[in-house]
């Protein structure tokens, strides 16, 4: 067993793939922090599910696994879905939550139909399109990792450059607009970054679970610090570690998809943080509450004692 692990860690393919998912996790942690704080995490979920038919149609057009075409298809399908969701919630009686789940599931259903139909095509089975559902990092090529690295670095640089703008538009967008910054530019930039991150993660984490890689690290990180800069950095770190460990888990056993194993690791971080964080954790809150209660009880008792 130990030998097996050492062998794996030294394996070049594993290193490439783990680096890819690790970097993806880092990116999701950073970008996801803004998505979560802007209460847009559900939109990410809808977008990623909606990407599936785009992947299928992309494949139907070129008839081979040309990653750029598949991801472009995913992007277009995702954007169409987002557009429909927003129009529905603004222009019709359908509320945002209903619109989200309706469009999310109908696009995902359409995606499954298309994928199943083209599974009969031997080309498609070989291309492993079903990997897009749960994610299979081992299907990643060095090229894919390079793509993640380059796009990721650009996105991280954008976060650095527009830090102050992102911060104010995440906290108080109305106020941000009165400062003379264009809300359209900042908010489009933020949304585009969230979309890009999701698209990058589709192959390795899968359409179903990618959104938890966006939400999880930031929720966990928020429990440990009260500064946005530290939340962002910690979320990036948690995302990175989850990506690497998740890939490791999926690589030691046979046929465990990467997406679920990464998400299990992220969830472990989230649960530990929710329970054990020293200031905001459930346990700490419980004891703080008990303590306050007993202080009040003692005060009341001493007041009653005075009367007698």
């Amino acid at each position, binding site marked *: 067993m130990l030998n097996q692990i050492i062998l794996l860690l030294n394996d070049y393919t594993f290193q490439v793939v783990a680096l890819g998912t690790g970097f993806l996790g880092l990116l999701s942690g950073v970008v996801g922090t803004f998505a979560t*704080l802007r*209460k847009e995490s559900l939109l990410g979920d809808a977008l990623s599910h909606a990407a599936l038919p785009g992947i299928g149609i992309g494949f139907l057009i070129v008839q081979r696994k040309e990653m750029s075409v598949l991801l472009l298809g995913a992007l277009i399908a995702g954007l169409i879905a987002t557009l429909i969701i927003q129009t529905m919630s603004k222009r019709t009686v359908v509320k945002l939550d209903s619109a989200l789940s309706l469009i999310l599931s109908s696009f995902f259903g359409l995606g499954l139909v298309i994928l199943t139909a083209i599974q009969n095509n031997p080309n498609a089975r070989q291309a492993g399109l079903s990997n897009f559902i749960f994610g299979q990092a081992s299907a990643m090529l060095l090229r894919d990792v390079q793509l993640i690295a380059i796009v990721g670095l650009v996105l991280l640089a954008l976060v650095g*450059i*527009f*830090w*102050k*703008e992102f*911060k*104010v538009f*995440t*906290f*108080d967008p*109305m*106020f*941000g*607009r*009165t*400062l*003379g*910054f264009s809300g359209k530019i900042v908010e489009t930039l933020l949304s585009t970054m969230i979309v890009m991150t999701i698209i990058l993660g589709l192959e390795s984490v899968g359409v179903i679970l990618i959104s938890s890689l966006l939400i999880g690290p930031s929720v966990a990180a*928020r429990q440990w*610090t*009260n*500064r*946005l800069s*530290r*939340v962002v950095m910690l979320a990036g770190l948690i995302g990175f570690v989850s990506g690497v460990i998740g890939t490791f888990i999926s690589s030691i056993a046979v046929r465990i998809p990467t997406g679920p194993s990464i998400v299990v690791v992220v969830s472990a971080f989230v649960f530990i943080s929710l329970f054990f964080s020293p200031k905001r954790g459930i346990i700490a809150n419980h004891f703080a509450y008990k303590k306050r209660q007993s202080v009040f009880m003692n005060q009341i008792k001493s007041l009653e004692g005075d009367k007698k």
Partner: protein
Amino acid sequence: MDESIAIKIDHLTVAYDAKPVLWDISIEFKKQRLTAVIGPNGAGKSTLIKTMLSFIQPINGSISFFLENETASPYKAVKNKIAYVPQNTTVDWDFPATVLDVVLMGRYGHLGWMKRPGKKDKEIAKQMLLKVGLPTFASRQISQLSGGQRQRVFLARALAQEADVYIMDEPLAGVDMKTERIIMKLLKGLVEKGKTVIVVHHDLQTVGDYFDDVVLINQEVIAQGTVADAFTKKAIDQTYHQDRNLGEGEG
């Protein structure tokens, strides 16, 4: 042009869908005056402010600002001279930031794109915290603040903008007496320094004590002018008792 006018609203009509919220409104906000905008719920007070700040496009009419060289400018040209204090319930106070972080946001407009706030900005932010009576709160997490303290942090953020006009949406809603006194003292101080302050206000009892001018609106302007002239019993009755939406269910 009358030199004492800061903002001139000319025949403004605003509607959501087909229903007019503000109907043919003309208001002149005077310079160096503390003006209250008063009216019942649904009278269009917040809509008026949001239209002044270009969040909402009017169907008709114009809003001109006379700040620097007395020429009429649109809102866009004088954005940085106007500080807006939204209702403090509009943001999520569990956002990971300190009090100083939030007050520093008031400096962002002066910095422009991409530049980060420097030492001077932090100095200004701290001074403003002192002014609102929260000098020891700089590194406090904003989720720990009470309602009154939140309102004062928002006020400090607006002060850090060092603007000429301050537009506030119900700054006294839900705050304690102590905060109310601190805020009103500050607003009077601003006016003495030559600033123009416009406040959406809901407490009729305090209008006489707190404000110089008043605008009474209920979809239309009912009365405007100095408190002594415009804040009459007749005008108040007319503002609060006319129900324009009779039969439509909401006011």
